[in-house]
């Protein structure tokens, strides 16, 4: 049951082989059984989930059901959910219950999906290993000594361990793709503006984008379809119809041109990983795709530019956490400054503080031009590099991450080396392009991810390439040892 595709689950529900209540209970039981060691879920939504499942069963009975009706899923704890705690992985919001629901979550709710709970994450989505969470690190089900990646590590680990068929995530610099790679599952971040950011707690507003984790590209397509769309509550949401993401999954990729950026295949890339990625590219070639080397000349500046833009935006975005209207407040503040400093000092962890400080620094008097403006200029150069590349190719492929999942604690005290684990993913966020990661093999029994990048609003083509690849390979069906058993 746990490894069934979304389509199979949906058919079982339609045929009443199983009810949504049973299916939801099944995955709740898996969470209870396995999550003690993984720590992927922060808050369970058991009672409300079963009520929602009951409603879904009624809808199925009365013939008002879609593909997602009655399908259980998990949401990253960055999405506000009315009535259920939204912590953003932070002590700051340990007691925060949003009085509204994020648009992306409501849309999935409308489609009939059943929310089982909220997943663990790096605090305020700042991290690449899930070790900055107030609720403790998440373990990678493929090797409990390694990290699941981040910041959406809880969602990725949960889907990898088959604790839920689907989970939502957000991606600011690789936070969906890198954990998907580390956990051996499929993850997609759509074009900036495709999924509403309303109710999604902001880290870096011009980079953040919600997306989906699933076992396969096909399942991810179903989930992303439901999450996508224009939202009048988000000024950066794009008012344009959403393509039918399932419609083109059967298309041949014959004649499609796939670009390999030479900057992503240098000596810095682990040789074993390079082999897996090249093998994946060969598979696509065998399916009829043309392969072409391309250049993204400024892509090596994406991490430096990102660590100006993202901290600058976050330094302002996180100012609202001041202990006045919601969130953590220190005990008996002696004056206003004490209230601010202690509430924020106690409520935020080290990495969040580092980024707020970097942001305040690069924006402060005298430094704006040298850092912030410069980063925005570099950002344009990077976007233009991609634009140039997409004149020649339809899809860009690379490794998702320069390594497989690293050990817990390995990079925790070295922010710069942690930041560099996102070197292949960050450029996509700066440009606002859609990108995804699909499993393409194992190195040292740890999953390797193939990153696919599409042109703006070409999620449909992106998902089709991933789907065609998954028709040729079965890496995405692999389940980590110990989690194949029924509970």
């Amino acid at each position, binding site marked *: 049951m746990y490894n069934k595709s979304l389509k199979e689950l949906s058919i079982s529900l339609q045929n009443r082989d199983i009810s949504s209540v049973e299916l939801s209970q099944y995955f709740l039981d898996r969470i209870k059984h396995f999550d003690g060691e993984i720590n992927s879920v922060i808050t369970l939504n058991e009672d409300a989930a079963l009520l929602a499942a009951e409603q879904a069963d009624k809808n199925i009975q009365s013939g008002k059901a879609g593909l997602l009706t009655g399908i259980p899923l998990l949401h990253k704890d960055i999405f506000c959910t009315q009535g259920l705690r939204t912590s953003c992985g932070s002590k700051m919001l340990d007691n925060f219950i949003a009085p509204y629901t994020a648009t992306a979550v409501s849309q999935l709710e409308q489609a009939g999906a059943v929310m089982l709970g909220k997943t663990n994450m790096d605090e305020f989505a700042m991290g690449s290993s899930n070790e900055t969470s107030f609720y403790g690190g998440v373990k990678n089900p493929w090797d409990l000594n390694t990290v699941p990646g981040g910041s959406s590590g809880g969602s990725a680990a949960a889907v990898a361990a088959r604790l839920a068929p689907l989970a939502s995530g957000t991606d600011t610099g690789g936070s969906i793709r890198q954990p998907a790679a580390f956990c051996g599952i499929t993850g997609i971040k759509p074009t900036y503006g495709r999924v509403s950011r309303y109710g999604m707690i902001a880290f870096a507003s011009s980079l953040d984008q919600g997306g989906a984790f699933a076992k396969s590209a096909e399942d991810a397509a179903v989930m992303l379809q439901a999450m996508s769309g224009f939202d009048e509550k988000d000024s950066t949401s794009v008012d344009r119809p959403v393509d039918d993401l399932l419609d083109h999954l059967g298309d041949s990729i014959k004649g499609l041109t796939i670009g390999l950026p030479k900057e992503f295949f240098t000596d810095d890339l682990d040789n074993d990983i390079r082999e897996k990625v090249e093998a994946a590219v060969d598979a696509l070639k065998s399916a009829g795709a043309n392969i072409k080397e391309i250049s993204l000349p400024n892509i090596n500046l994406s991490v430096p530019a990102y660590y100006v833009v993202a901290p600058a935006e976050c330094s302002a975005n996180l100012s609202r956490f001041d202990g006045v209207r919601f969130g953590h407040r220190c005990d008996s503040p002696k004056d206003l400054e004490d209230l601010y*400093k202690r509430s924020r000092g*106690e409520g935020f962890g080290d990495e969040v503080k580092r980024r707020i400080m970097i942001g305040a620094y690069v924006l402060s008097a005298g430094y704006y031009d040298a850092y912030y403006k410069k980063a925005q200029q570099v950002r344009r150069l990077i976007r233009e590099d991609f634009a140039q590349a997409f004149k020649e190719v339809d899809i860009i492929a690379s490794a998702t991450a320069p390594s497989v999942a690293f050990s817990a604690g390995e990079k925790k005290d070295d922010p710069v080396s942690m930041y560099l684990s996102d070197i292949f993913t960050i450029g996509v966020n700066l440009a606002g392009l859609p990108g995804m990661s699909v499993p393409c093999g194992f190195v040292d029994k740890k999953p390797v991810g193939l990153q696919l990048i599409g042109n703006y609003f070409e999620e449909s083509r992106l998902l089709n390439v991933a789907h065609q690849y998954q028709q040729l390979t079965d890496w995405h069906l692999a389940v980590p040892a110990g989690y194949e058993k029924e509970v």
Partner: protein
Amino acid sequence: MSIQSEDVLKIAHLARLGIQDEQVESYASDLTNIMGLVEQMNQVDTTGIEPMAHPLDQVQRLRPDVVSEKNQREALQKNAPDIQDGLFLVPRVIE
């Protein structure tokens, strides 16, 4: 750009972040390393390049001037740490 302890204290104050005295040094060294990474941007000449704030070249959508929100004070103040008579309370502000 080397970031000194006094810079850390200055920025922490700007951002109203309480940090432990014994952590100041390690923040200074972390921030210095991060700024070292950031300064790799200087490898490229960006003279004349228009700064880019948003990934897509879109313009702001305008909302019709309609009152759509009702009073939800009770629900919105449920998370508030200290309220009285509908007001959020903070330590006395002297002007």
